[in-house]
């Protein structure tokens, strides 16, 4: 099929960069929403009342136990049309990434909280703190440090998984890769460029997370 055509890369580069911005935006939104919901779900997941615990356990089972690919189709073509007038693939992508990340992050929070020695909670409660105060001032600050490595992992997976948005035509990075492939019937130029951009994004995220981990380690 001839030599590597830098022309194709040059022509599509603005679209790839625009797509990369969308990828970063959707991933950040997913990370943010997933972390907030995941925190509450992780705490609810270890509640003493079964009627709080069980719905969360089953939510986590459902979202960890089914492919993201299936989830994105169900949400885009099934769930979103039920609750919104107009369907926007980017919204569907963010919703799917958030709901999926929530399940994984809930498990990370749960493991982090449960890894803290029971004596910490007992000491805090014996000093008159409420359960919420003990969580906030004693347990979570310690648990958070231990959650950084698995959270970093999850964020990287999420960023890469956002490429599935291409299947519902969310204009993220992979969508533009497929567009270029479709126009020129070339494989290496679009997909290799897209792969390298993903690599740059995930490596940047890795360095950022390592930096945060080091900072927290000395604190």
């Amino acid at each position, binding site marked *: 099929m001839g030599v590597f055509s830098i022309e194709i890369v040059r022509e599509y580069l603005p679209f790839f960069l625009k797509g990369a911005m969308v990828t970063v935006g959707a991933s950040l939104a997913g990370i943010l929403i997933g972390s907030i919901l995941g925190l509450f779900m992780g705490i609810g997941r270890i509640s003493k009342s079964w009627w709080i615990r069980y719905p969360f356990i089953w939510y986590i089972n459902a979202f960890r136990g089914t492919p993201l690919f299936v989830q994105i189709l169900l949400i885009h073509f099934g769930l979103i049309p039920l609750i919104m007038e107009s369907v926007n693939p980017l919204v569907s992508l963010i919703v799917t990434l958030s709901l999926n990340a929530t399940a994984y992050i809930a498990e990370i929070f749960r493991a982090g909280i449960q890894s803290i020695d029971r004596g910490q909670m007992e000491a805090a409660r014996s*000093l008159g*703190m409420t359960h919420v105060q003990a969580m906030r001032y*004693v347990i979570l600050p310690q648990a958070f*440090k231990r959650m950084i490595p698995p959270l970093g992992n999850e964020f990287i997976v999420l960023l890469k998984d956002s490429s599935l948005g291409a299947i519902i035509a969310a204009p993220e990075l992979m969508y533009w890769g497929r567009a270029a492939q479709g126009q020129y019937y070339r494989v290496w130029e679009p997909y290799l460029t897209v792969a390298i951009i993903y690599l740059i994004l995930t490596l940047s995220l890795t360095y950022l997370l390592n930096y945060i981990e080091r900072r927290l380690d000395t604190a």
Partner: protein
Amino acid sequence: MIKVERLKKSFGDLEVLKEISVEIKPQEVVVVIGPSGSGKSTFLRCLNLLESITGGKVMIKDQDLTAKGTNINQVRTNVGMVFQQFNLFPHKTVLENIMMSPMKVRKWQRKQAEEKGLALLRKVGLYEKAHVYPDSLSGGQKQRVAIARALAMEPEIMLFDEPTSALDPEMVGEVLEVMKDLAKEGMTMVVVTHEMGFAKEVGDRVLFMDGGYIVEENVPIALFDNPQQERTKAFLSKVL
């Protein structure tokens, strides 16, 4: 000060406390001894409801802990507790460990909490350690900080759960000294310990527990020198 009536505690099918009744007066120092598994730590942990109660009643200053409308957090501010494993907060400095509860629970201003914290550190001989993290302290120092942290809430009662059992032998003395000072100042104390010397010297009364019951109780001299029950004699012959 503390009134325990027919207290029962089970973990599943395991009955750890069978029926405990005891009354502890203000400023009294009560030492609880007994073999491991006798329920003495569980008994202590029921006094501030770190363990839920299966049956009976615990009253702190005439307040029934399990009654409806009792605010257990409120009660706990008046009942300090010191643990075998110290349980200091590793992400906070020594001084911050002590200041946390007064600020978060009692809503003290930072300055007031800091003054209180530094005064307590001076009292337990660790003033110069105020700004280090617990990690860098020895076991004995950690336990003295834990005592200071509990005292920061200005409790009227202090519970000690084997406070010297996790310490190297040469550090036991410094912790017991702090506890002796507290006793002298008139603190009401309940101490679960294996330190028979401390029991004899500081205790106003000794409870010997075994199998979920208080088998025998008396002033230290009488209990140690002239035990009445066979089980007490057997235990004492092993530890003295």
